């Protein structure tokens, strides 16, 4: 160790004193981060504990059992898992093309002066409460779908099993469409972020080769951004999986698995919201908790995939430039 001259040691002590805010901030931030992790673990544990009765009773067959019959105390999750996944996928099939198209319009096509107003409107849409979309779905969307759009689909694509069967209005397809509308803002704004991260130098490279506007979008923008756009979609899926209120109002709430999109369905989130108040037996309650556990696991997996893909995207981008 060196001897420290007295005139420096004072300065050194002063600096030590000044480190305190740094250190305390570091620990404060760490505690905050740990709390979040702890919260997720606790929620997971609590769901698991409350569902243990059902887990013991049905074991793994719970997730592949078709019947949901509280009167007979028999509970199976498959129709709800199916309903959740199918309505979410439908929503994605609708929301991703629309969201990406809107984002392309906002970053590549629209005049600068109208971009910000549109972005503001999209952000407003994201803050409309779910139940309002549900009301709109029941009173506006569904009647119109039932009387015009679905019959049209049926007469045009009726040869497909997807569009066979009676039309009630409330259906898997209505659920998917309402979810699509609800996740459209987030898919759009996330896609916009991804597209804005495409360097102008890429666009100029394409322009300089004599590409037209659309060709620039295709070879320089979309291909550069495609992984990030996929991430935007998966993030949307994470949202779609948990949508409860509006879906419950339009999907029909009957635990059936049907190939037809005109048939009603039921989602994990909806059945929990609908039935927890009337769960009279312990096993019934416990089964609802297990549905919650299943939903949590599906959501975590989807979000983990989204995070992974986004990480790859940012790594890739920094290696490129």
């Amino acid at each position, binding site marked *: 160790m060196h001897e420290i001259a007295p005139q420096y040691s004072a300065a050194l002590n002063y600096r030590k004193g000044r480190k305190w805010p740094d250190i305390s901030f570091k620990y404060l931030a760490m505690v905050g981060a740990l709390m979040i992790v702890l919260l997720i673990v606790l929620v997971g544990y609590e769901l698991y504990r409350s569902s243990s009765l059902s887990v013991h009773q049905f074991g793994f067959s719970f997730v592949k059992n078709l019947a949901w019959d509280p009167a007979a105390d028999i509970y199976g999750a498959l129709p709800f898992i199916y309903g959740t996944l199918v309505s979410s996928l439908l929503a994605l099939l609708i929301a991703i093309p629309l969201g990406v198209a809107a984002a392309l319009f906002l970053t590549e096509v629209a005049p600068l002066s109208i971009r910000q107003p549109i972005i503001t409107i999209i952000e407003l849409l994201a803050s409309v409460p779910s139940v309002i979309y549900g009301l709109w779905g029941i009173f506006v969307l569904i009647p119109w779908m039932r009387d015009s759009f679905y019959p049209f689909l049926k007469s045009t694509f009726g040869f497909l099993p997807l569009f066979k069967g009676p039309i009630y209005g409330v259906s898997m397809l209505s659920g998917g469409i309402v979810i699509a509308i609800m996740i459209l803002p987030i898919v759009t704004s996330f896609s916009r972020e991804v597209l804005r991260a495409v*360097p102008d130098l890429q666009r*100029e490279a394409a322009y*300089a*080769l*004599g*590409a037209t506007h659309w*060709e620039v979008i295709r070879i320089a923008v979309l291909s*550069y951004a495609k992984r990030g756009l996929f991430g935007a979609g998966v993030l949307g899926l994470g949202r779609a999986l948990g949508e409860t209120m509006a879906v419950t109002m339009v999907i029909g709430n009957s635990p059936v698995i049907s190939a037809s999109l005109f048939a009603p369905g039921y989602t994990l989130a909806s059945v929990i919201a609908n039935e927890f108040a009337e769960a009279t037996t312990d096993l019934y309650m416990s089964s609802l908790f297990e549905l919650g556990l299943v939903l949590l696991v599906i959501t975590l997996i989807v979000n983990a995939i989204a995070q992974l893909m986004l990480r790859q995207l940012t790594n*890739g981008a920094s290696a490129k430039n």
Partner: protein
Amino acid sequence: MTSIDNLKKRIIIGTQVIKPTVSVIPAFEIRNLKLWYSQNQALHDVSFDIAANQVTAIIGPSGCGKSTFLRSLNRLHETIAGSRMEGSIKLFGDDLYLKSIDAAYVRRRVGMVFQKSNPFPTMSIAENVLVGLRLNGVNDQKFLKQRLEESLRLSALWDEVKDFLDRPGVSLSGGQQQRLCIARALAVQPEVLLMDEPCSALDPIATMKIEELIQTLRTKVSIVIVTHNMQQASRCSNKTAFFYLGRLIEYSETRTIFTNPLNPQTEAYVSGRFG
């Protein structure tokens, strides 16, 4: 548009672009060029001729409008919202700014290489080189293969990459990526190649390679190069234009600009007293 069809034909036949009597018609005739970004005027009344089959260097201090000038030569400034241009520019006698002429068509005749190399990251080396031809609708595999090799040889990259043409273009080193971008620009056989500080991000050896490349290319294509490097300008160019504050101050033989300039501002700049 018929002019694009003509271009396609030339590319498909694979003959070098036939320039009308090279010695007489300049590559570019620039007349009273003025350019604005919104309210801010970046170029003031620039007029001069850029000779064909020569290397013309554009020099001047940062912000004097060199890149802006270069972009006006292939109408790339039009992709920037708020830019506005006055005056006229002719490319081998054809007015580039006629209403009936598509900017995309101009850019197919005038290739460009940027300061930072910008290969398309999702494309392989081969795809990067051929993307311009594919945009022109060329699909003949044999022809594409042949043009791929030609372009990579022209840009002195063939020997280094011929065994892994399917690897991503961005897997190459910085200098190789820049030569890949040159190959990409050359693949459509442009009549002029614009280079905006092509070496500023490269080490001395990679820089030397590009300078050698410029020397071999000058017989095939007219080159306009922006550079901050005085040695580079004096080494590779025949003519030099000195810009200052958006104006063309002096344009002359490179030797004259560097040894015996007429204008005191030019003199001050090339001797390193400002800029």
